[in-house]
């Protein structure tokens, strides 16, 4: 064995956040606090039309009436919403045609993150729409996409240039008043991505954005809207890392997916916000509302790898409205130290012959708490609905917890629902078997965890799968001796 148990533990505890650095780019930051003036100011700053300003104000007024939800199985210091600055954008805002013109400091940041923009451009064929502190700075491959009629831009640009599309779809899946954080996001969202795939078009590359929280004390409120017209296909990737901060940072994003008849959307996330240090200090609060709407024969597939954030509160959902629509959810949630995650999905079966699959893998180590919370709802008119859910939890050490809260509500007799959950630890015999074959304990654990997560990792696009596997290793290295 390469390490003793103590050594492994020590190494894990001292494993600091690898991407914890801070880039000094002059920012244009709003004063702290939130009121109607700030909401109007954000809207003005972004040169938005009147209807958008009104929409934001509506959301803000609703938000004021709402209370912060407390039902999740997480404990945290509630953020002070008046102590957050709601807008920050990198100061220099020119539009680049090539990467050479981009601020070298920014490029350096990406290099540290391991996202070499040009390399990805060449090798992976990925168009990266980089969001740094809320405003998109670089958009690549736009031309290739434009030829196909695909619109892939920042949401603020979309509001200006494609108002008819935004107006038609924004807030249709996640209404302004949906929940506390969705309302907050609707009022103050600074930027995000917009993606429109025209009828019958198959997006030739994986679309991706990277989010970062950069400016101290600024919340990040992303808004993503993906529309797949009839018979189209798109695979969308989203990944995030954040620099180290002592103060808790709030991240309340909203993602809306609309898959019209026969369309397919594949949405993959790797989330690696700063999880706080080993004492549980700092870290990002990640309160996200993600929801997709499926029309007839449409399919939405969520894949997520959650390794970061101090507190995660996230339930990517599918509304299976059209007949024969399909919803999928594949998730790996890893928590270590004092991280808390309450994550899962909602599958709402409304149409006939709808199908959904849920595979959730939770791994908890250190003193973390990892919960799966899911809802499978079959409406009385949803004939022949089919659901399969599987939630497995792996515990490492006896100071962590794994929880499962599945809600199953069925109102139709033709529904077929299966739900399975297991909780276990890595078997001593499994490790022994590996040791016996000359694989040291740490590698053996990586191997077993990898096997445990394989079902989900397999669903990730190639570029992400490698990164995700690395992340798993970083997050769990040496958790168990």
């Amino acid at each position, binding site marked *: 064995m390469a390490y003793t148990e103590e050594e492994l533990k020590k190494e894990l505890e001292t494993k600091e956040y690898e991407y914890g650095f801070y880039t000094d780019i002059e920012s244009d930051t709003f004063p702290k606090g939130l009121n109607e003036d700030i909401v109007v100011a954000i809207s003005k700053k972004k040169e938005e039309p009147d209807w958008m300003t009104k929409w934001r104000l509506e959301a803000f007024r609703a938000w004021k009436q709402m209370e912060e939800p407390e039902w999740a199985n997480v404990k945290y210091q509630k953020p002070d919403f008046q102590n957050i600055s709601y807008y920050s954008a990198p100061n220099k805002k020119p539009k680049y045609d090539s990467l050479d013109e981009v601020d070298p400091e920014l490029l350096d940041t990406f290099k540290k993150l391991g996202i070499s923009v040009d390399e990805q451009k060449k090798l992976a064929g990925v168009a990266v729409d980089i969001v740094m502190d809320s405003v998109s700075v670089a958009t690549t491959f736009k031309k290739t996409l434009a030829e196909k009629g695909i619109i892939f831009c920042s949401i603020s640009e979309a509001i200006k240039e494609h108002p008819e599309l935004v107006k038609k779809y924004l807030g249709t899946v996640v209404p302004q008043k949906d929940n506390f954080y969705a309302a907050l996001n609707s009022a103050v969202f600074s930027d995000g991505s917009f993606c429109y795939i025209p009828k019958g078009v198959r997006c030739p590359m994986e679309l991706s954005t990277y989010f970062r929280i950069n400016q101290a004390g600024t919340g990040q409120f992303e808004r993503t809207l993906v529309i797949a017209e009839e018979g189209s296909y798109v695979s969308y990737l989203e990944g995030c890392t954040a620099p180290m901060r002592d103060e808790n940072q709030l991240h309340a994003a909203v993602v809306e997916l609309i898959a019209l008849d026969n369309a397919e959307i594949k949405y993959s996330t790797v989330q690696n916000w700063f999880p706080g240090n080993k004492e549980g200090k700092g870290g990002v609060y990640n309160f996200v509302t993600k929801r997709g709407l499926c029309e007839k024969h449409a399919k939405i597939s969520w894949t997520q790898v959650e390794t970061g954030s101090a507190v995660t509160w996230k339930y990517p959902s599918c509304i299976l409205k059209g007949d024969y629509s399909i919803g999928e959810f594949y998730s790996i949630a890893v928590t270590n130290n004092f991280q808390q995650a309450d994550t899962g999905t909602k599958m709402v079966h409304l149409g006939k012959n709808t199908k959904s699959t849920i595979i959730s893998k939770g791994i908890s180590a250190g003193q973390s708490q990892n919960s799966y919370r899911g809802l499978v709802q079959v409406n009385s008119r949803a004939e022949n609905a089919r659901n399969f859910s599987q939630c497995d939890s792996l515990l490492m050490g006896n100071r*962590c917890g794994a*929880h*499962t809260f599945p809600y*199953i509500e069925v109102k139709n007799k033709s529904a077929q*629902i299966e739900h*399975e959950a297991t909780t276990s630890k890595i078997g001593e015999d499994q490790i022994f078997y590996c040791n016996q074959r000359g694989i040291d304990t740490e590698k053996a654990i990586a191997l077993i965890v990898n096997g445990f997560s394989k079902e989900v990792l397999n669903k990730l696009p190639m570029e992400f799968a490698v990164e995700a596997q690395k992340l798993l290793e970083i997050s769990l290295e040496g958790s168990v001796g």
Partner: protein
Amino acid sequence: MDLKEKLVSSFMAFEDGLDLDHPVHEERSSAIKNFETKGFPTKKDEAWKYTSLRGLEKIDFSIFPKHETTLEYKDVKKYFLHEIDTYKIVFVDGVYSSYLSETTHDGVDVCLMSSAFSKPMFKQVIEVYFNKAASKDESLTSLNTAFSKEGAYIYIPKNKMPKKPIQILHLATGKEPALMLQPRNLIVAEDNAEVQIIERHQSLTGNEVFTNSVTEIFAGKDAIVDYYKVQNDEPTASLVDNTYISQKDSSVVRVHTFSLGGKLIRNNLNFYQNGERIDSTLKGITILGDKQHVDHHTLVHHAQPNCESHQDYKGIFGDSSTGVFNGKIIVDKIAQKTDAFQQNNNILLSDKSTINSKPQLEIFADDVKCSHGCTIGQLDDEALFYLRSRGIPKKEAKALLMYAFANNVLESVRIPELKLRINKIIADKLGVRMGFDL
């Protein structure tokens, strides 16, 4: 006046007839205070998300029945498991009926809570056990504690076993247009004791009955307790059945719940494992029709290492009935090597029926084996075809499949006559005559 106010205000009158110096009196007073603060649970409470008591709260229940009623044995014989000899503790409208009962003090105590409260010889047991397992927080349990006065008292000393099973029967005569009953049972099986108990609530007419029952069961080291709940009541009878079980080392407690009839049934079944190598079994069969509503709410709290728990609930729901299953398993940090299993299978027969299932795991220990499974589906068409191709009519074929579905639960019933009785009730429910016994 709503039901809550009525209950709170009648507590004073209730106190009048009791010994105020009795140690239990304090428990009652603090319990009524808790109920007064919390009131009846509403759908806003997570634990009552799928079951509403609003309808019941509107009914003007009489809390203390005015009439004393005697019943002829032949009229109520069918509600007893009369095929075998048993001890019987029978209550008619909440009042003990010595005529219908058969109690004993021969080695074991099978008698009444009212005498256990009043007689000095039981004082010690009451002090050690009464209200020690029951929740002091849950409002309906508090309500029962406040009005606790009558019920079954069963005490099995060390190494003893009663000669025959014990039946507890609560009959409601319907003399009152609407009656609320609050029986309180205490069952103590000391180390290495064994006991089998059958409990049934039965309304004799179509008048409204609302029973809020609390049963506390204590199982000592190596004790074995089998508890069978037969719930096959009239469509106007509602039942909230709160059971709290505290187990010590190596004890075995099995609770079977047969929910086959009633208006609204809520079973709160709570197991607390306070020792090692404990075995807890929770099984249930639910077969419903009409607008019936059954809510199974189970909790198994694994607080010590090397324990097991097995849960298996089967439900068949027809017409506009609603089934709820909410099973919770908690495994504490120190409860290593726990083996907890939970299963909930449901069949929906009608498009108006609903099932809400929430199997929950909360696990804090790493070296455990915990799993749960939940399925919702319908009868297998191919199996049905197989049977019909062999000349079995559709109705019987369906019934046969449903029998097979529920059989897992029946298998572990250890009183053969009871098993037969349940089979008959199920056949009755399904409207078939089976030519064989399962």
